[in-house]
């Protein structure tokens, strides 16, 4: 993102110099308003960015030493990572007779800095949360004694579907990152990182009356039933 902004700044600077050439003004006298490049104090003297781009592509008349085309490359080495953070809360109900886990409510408050497209951010969170809950409750690589993978197809590997989830409740805090010019942070992994732990901890909390403090994921119905069954001394 920062590299994109730096490249854009370079392009704006080149467009300003070319506009100055077209309008017979000094580059420092050109002001940029939206996509228009105007001579300060003479608002009728102006060029649209499209006109500048077209002219510099043809480059019939370019300032001495200026290369054609409005394209630039920029690189950026960040002084630090961005640190998105948040809190996720899962509410589950465990069926004591069958071991089924019902995810009844899911609330996520994330801080991903400034959002350029909030809908895409929500989609990233929804997808990440579904992936993480899948790991906590359903998805497992099962091998037989010969090392043969038994969950090698979508028929057997329990990838969750939308209908397995409650409506995911999202909210936000906005703390711009100081390590890039527009204050953005990553969001791709936020849902997947928090949701596995939130759901697993909720299940373990529900199993506290049985003295159960740890189970290996996924918390399938059978795994949860088995743990309760054993905790009760094998009595149904």
């Amino acid at each position: 993102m920062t590299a994109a902004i730096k490249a854009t700044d370079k392009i704006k600077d080149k467009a300003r110099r070319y506009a100055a050439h077209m309008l017979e003004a000094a580059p420092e006298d050109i002001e940029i308003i939206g996509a228009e490049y105007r001579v300060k104090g003479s608002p009728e003297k102006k060029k649209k960015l499209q006109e500048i781009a077209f002219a510099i592509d043809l480059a019939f008349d370019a300032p001495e030493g200026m290369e054609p085309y409005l394209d630039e490359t920029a690189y950026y080495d960040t002084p630090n990572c961005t640190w998105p953070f948040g809190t996720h809360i899962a509410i589950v109900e465990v069926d004591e007779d069958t071991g089924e886990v019902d995810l009844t409510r899911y609330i996520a408050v994330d801080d991903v800095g400034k959002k350029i497209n909030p809908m895409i951010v929500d989609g990233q969170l929804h997808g990440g949360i579904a992936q993480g809950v899948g790991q906590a409750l359903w998805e497992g690589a099962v091998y037989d004694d010969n090392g043969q993978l038994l969950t090698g197809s979508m028929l057997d590997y329990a990838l969750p579907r939308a209908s397995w989830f409650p409506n995911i409740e999202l909210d936000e805090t906005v703390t711009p990152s100081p390590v890039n010019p527009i204050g953005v942070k990553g969001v791709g992994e936020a849902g997947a990182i928090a949701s596995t732990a939130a759901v697993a901890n909720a299940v373990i909390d529900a199993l506290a009356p049985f003295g159960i403090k740890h189970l290996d994921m996924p918390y399938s119905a059978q795994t949860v039933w088995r743990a309760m069954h054993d905790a009760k001394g094998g009595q149904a």
Partner: protein
Amino acid sequence: VIPAEFGYRRPASIEEALKLLDTDPGAKVLAGGQSLLPLLKMRLASAETLVDIGRIPGLKGVRRLDDGRVAIGALTTYAELMDSPVNEYGLLRDALPNIGDVQVRNRGTIGGNLCTSDPTNHLPPLMAALGAQMTIAGPGGERTVPAADFFLGVYLTAVGVGEVLTKITVPAGRGDGFAAVTLGVDGTCIASAAASVNGSVTVALGCVDAVPVVLRPGSAEEDAVRDAVRGANLAPPADVHSSSEYRTHLAEVLAVRAVNQARS
């Protein structure tokens, strides 16, 4: 993912379909295609010819008979069933919305589901508990088989070579119930139980054997239902989702739940 080569015929009448099946022993009947086509694509099944009965008139729809029974055309889709008089049957009302997804429910048919006789399908135990009658058409005419005798094994039913299931007739609605444990909300079934209570009690267990296990507990009381399940000496298969022991346990829990629902 790509099926082996097969021929395709689309008869316009049941008579024509039966003739095609009679002359081509390698032919298979195609209805909604929601089970057969995936099996063909994974090459777990093969067919010389698919006889597509999907557009034969008269095999679709739900009709209430004068005596209160409900006749269901074999080509009726799950979506059509959900919007029909079978909604009076609590167990169908509960089970149908959890079969597949919307796309599958718009294409898949009750006849296809029953004839597939997949042990994880919801409908075979439901039909066994309701005491449905299956009407099968063949070269020699029609015959009727009770649901309890219809399912013969995994992917195997009383519908023989050259025959087609045309109609399912369900007794008049009474107290019935259904309970299942599936992967997630509507994934693969791990165990299920369907119950019908009308003076006598019938319980049909799904996913614990190749075919539905039909039990007749002495009463609808919990102890009687549990005794009946224990007395069946179930030895269900184990798979990646469940051990044999867990399925046996679920059968008992779900049978009690289905019966309780049927009584309420």
